[in-house]
């Protein structure tokens, strides 16, 4: 249609020119996008980030910057290699970076963080087809790799740096101290988090604040943390009854190590957890059970990472077992 013809049209005809068709529904919830969900996760991680910076100073800042930058670089590189649309703007790589940074020791050298990020994004996510397609939690894939490859920097001794000016880093982590010499830390230290450990795991209260926010916003499904916490509480309670004199109580199990951080921020990754509420609860309970298995029976003090990765592998099966019955089917 030429411009002259267009001018001749009546207002009515002009309006009809722009009419289009599409399948119903014709309305969408405009407040809800993948990106807004990801930003929600970042907001919920703020208390944890603030506590880690308070406790570990520049160790935390350094790890966060390195991991975020490497994750973004890895995402850009791998999407480019696979000729996929540029996907940095959805913030998912930023979240992977923050989670990796918060799950490793502040003292880990820079190349450990970089390698964890590249393995996490590259092998954990991009090779499966990018966002939404991965089977395993990318951050945990990256962490698992450096955990095995650089055991010295990531294991129990990796957390301590005797020459550090930061008080927390001069001590062993509470979990190790207990495992090695049976020392039971006070609950308030675990609750507030002024102790050694991976950057994000030390403060129970920060994890709870961020986690509850995520659950209220329905960005994380409350069924998963509930499953983890209930299972750990029940199994920890049983362990307490069986050997009451260890001094390590149910609350120590809940507040110690990466349990709450894992329950609220790692296990709740929607991509790698089941779809239905029931499936999510089963997934959470499985994570909790594996954590307790490792904590109680292996020489390995902390099992959140392996628990999440193992349950990630079971997610397709859980989905298959939990096809909900439609309304009216008995």
């Amino acid at each position, binding site marked *: 249609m030429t411009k002259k013809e267009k001018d001749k049209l009546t207002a009515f005809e002009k309006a009809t020119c722009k009419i*289009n068709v*599409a*399948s119903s*529904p014709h309305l*969408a919830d*405009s407040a809800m996008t993948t990106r807004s969900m990801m930003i929600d996760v970042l907001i919920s991680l703020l208390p944890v980030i603030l506590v880690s910076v308070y406790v570990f100073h520049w160790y935390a800042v350094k790890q966060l910057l390195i991991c975020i930058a490497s994750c973004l670089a890895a995402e850009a590189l791998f999407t480019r290699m696979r000729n996929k649309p540029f996907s940095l703007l959805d913030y998912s790589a930023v979240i992977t970076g923050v989670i990796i940074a918060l799950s490793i020791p502040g003292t880990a050298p820079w190349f450990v963080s970089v390698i964890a990020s590249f393995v996490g994004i590259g092998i954990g996510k991009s090779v499966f087809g990018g966002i939404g397609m991965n089977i395993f939690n990318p951050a945990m894939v990256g962490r698992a790799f450096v955990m095995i490859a650089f055991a010295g920097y990531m294991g129990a001794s990796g957390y301590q740096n005797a020459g550090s000016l930061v008080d927390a880093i001069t001590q062993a982590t509470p979990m190790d101290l207990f495992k090695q010499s049976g020392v039971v830390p006070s609950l308030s230290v675990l609750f507030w988090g002024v102790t050694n450990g991976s950057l994000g795991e030390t403060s129970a209260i920060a994890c709870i604040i961020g986690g509850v926010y995520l659950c209220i916003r329905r960005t994380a499904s409350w069924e998963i943390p509930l499953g983890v916490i209930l299972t750990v509480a029940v199994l920890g309670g049983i362990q307490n009854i069986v050997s009451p004199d260890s001094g390590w109580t149910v609350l120590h199990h809940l507040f110690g190590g990466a349990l709450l951080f894992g329950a609220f921020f790692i296990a709740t990754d929607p991509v790698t957890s089941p779809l*239905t509420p029931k499936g999510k609860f089963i997934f959470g309970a499985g994570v909790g059970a594996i954590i307790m298995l490792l904590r109680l029976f292996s020489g390995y003090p902390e099992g959140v990472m392996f628990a999440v990765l193992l349950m990630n592998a079971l997610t397709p099966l859980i989905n298959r077992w939990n096809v*909900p019955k439609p*309304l009216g089917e008995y």
Partner: protein
Amino acid sequence: MRLGLKGFAGGGTFAHGVHPPGRKHYSSDAQIEVVPAPETLLLPLQQNIGAPSKPIVKARQDVLYGDVVAKSGGFVSVPLHSPVSGKVKKSAVTTLPTGLHIEAIVIKAEENQTAGNDFYADLTGADWPKNGIGEYDPNKIAEAINNAGIVGLGGATFPTHVKFMPNDKKPVHTLLVNGCECEPYLTSDYRLMLEAPAAIITGALLAGHALGARDIVINVEDNKMDAVDALRQAAQDTIIRIAVLKTKYPQGSEKHLILALTKHEVPLGGLPSDVGMAVSNVGTIAAVAMALIKDKPLTHRVVSVTGGGVARPANLLAPIGISCGELIEFCGGLNENASRMIAGGPMMGFPFIDLETPVTKGTSGLTILTEEDVQKAEETSCVHCGRCVDVCPMRLVPTKIALAGRHKDLELARRYNIMACFECGCCAYICPAGIPLVQLIRAGKVLIAAMNKP
């Protein structure tokens, strides 16, 4: 079993579902206006679920208002009546917004038609009996409903006489009259309840009597309290009760209406009669009253023309067969920012571009959305957030069914009960990734239907 309504068992709502913006304000205060009959009417032969009607008039034949122009094509089918007096012209083929190509009877109307005004006067008039309904023969009521060409006016267009026939095998003890109108924008049922409550009450008594129902409950969502008041007033001294339900989409789905009111679940693939209930829209019930008391077949219906894209949103009493374009023109035409025209509401309605598309018995409204309304975020990957599972009122897993539809994996689609989906659109409405879930599920259903064909 009688329904104890006080604090009813279902609690007035159901699990899951969504709360889209109501946007009823465009047309909720607009009194029903009678649209003058147009020069020509186009009556598509398929205006009901089931067999198409069979034409019994020829070109150049004269017809009077209310004459049958097409007879019922079978048991699950109804006749068609002329909404005007005039002359039959050569038949034409038309395309309905649903995509159906169908032959239509064309009628050229004489000048000075009064049928619409008479219809409105009868519908909203005062002389609707509440007593003596028991003297009607139940079988005769069903027959009269069939003869009047009445189908479900909520949009499903199921022939009403089939529903209201006395049934010994599955006796119906409760008639639920559906005044929920849960679709955003639409106000045609709401205006009808406000302006013609007496007709609805009489129709409900007639339908309840035909079914042998002991309970008759009219259901209205709590965003239409003045309709509730009007109906309560009109229902005085009758057995009819009014239930106020919580506003939620898709409350107007008959299965969810029953669930919200009684907690009963209609079996999958079953009908309300399996739990002893019948559900019918308020417009349909008013049409039943018009047919039996005023002897008027279904020739006109209330249509909301609404949304930000139309100059003067209104509720119209329109002759069936008038073109959508003429209704829009009657409402002052489209605004500059009009972007999509929908037959029905925005959640389940069908988009159309042809202004010649005729209004059929199932057209509850024309929703004209603006560019702003239809702006959709770009589709991104599914992150399995499970929100579609959280909102699906049928308790399905929409993302898996859509995935099956996309990859033509029929085994997966069946495992996730694709056929239970009634395409309400809650999942696509909520999806943060902007995935056209309903479209993909529809594609899967089409594939399965094609497979099942011999």
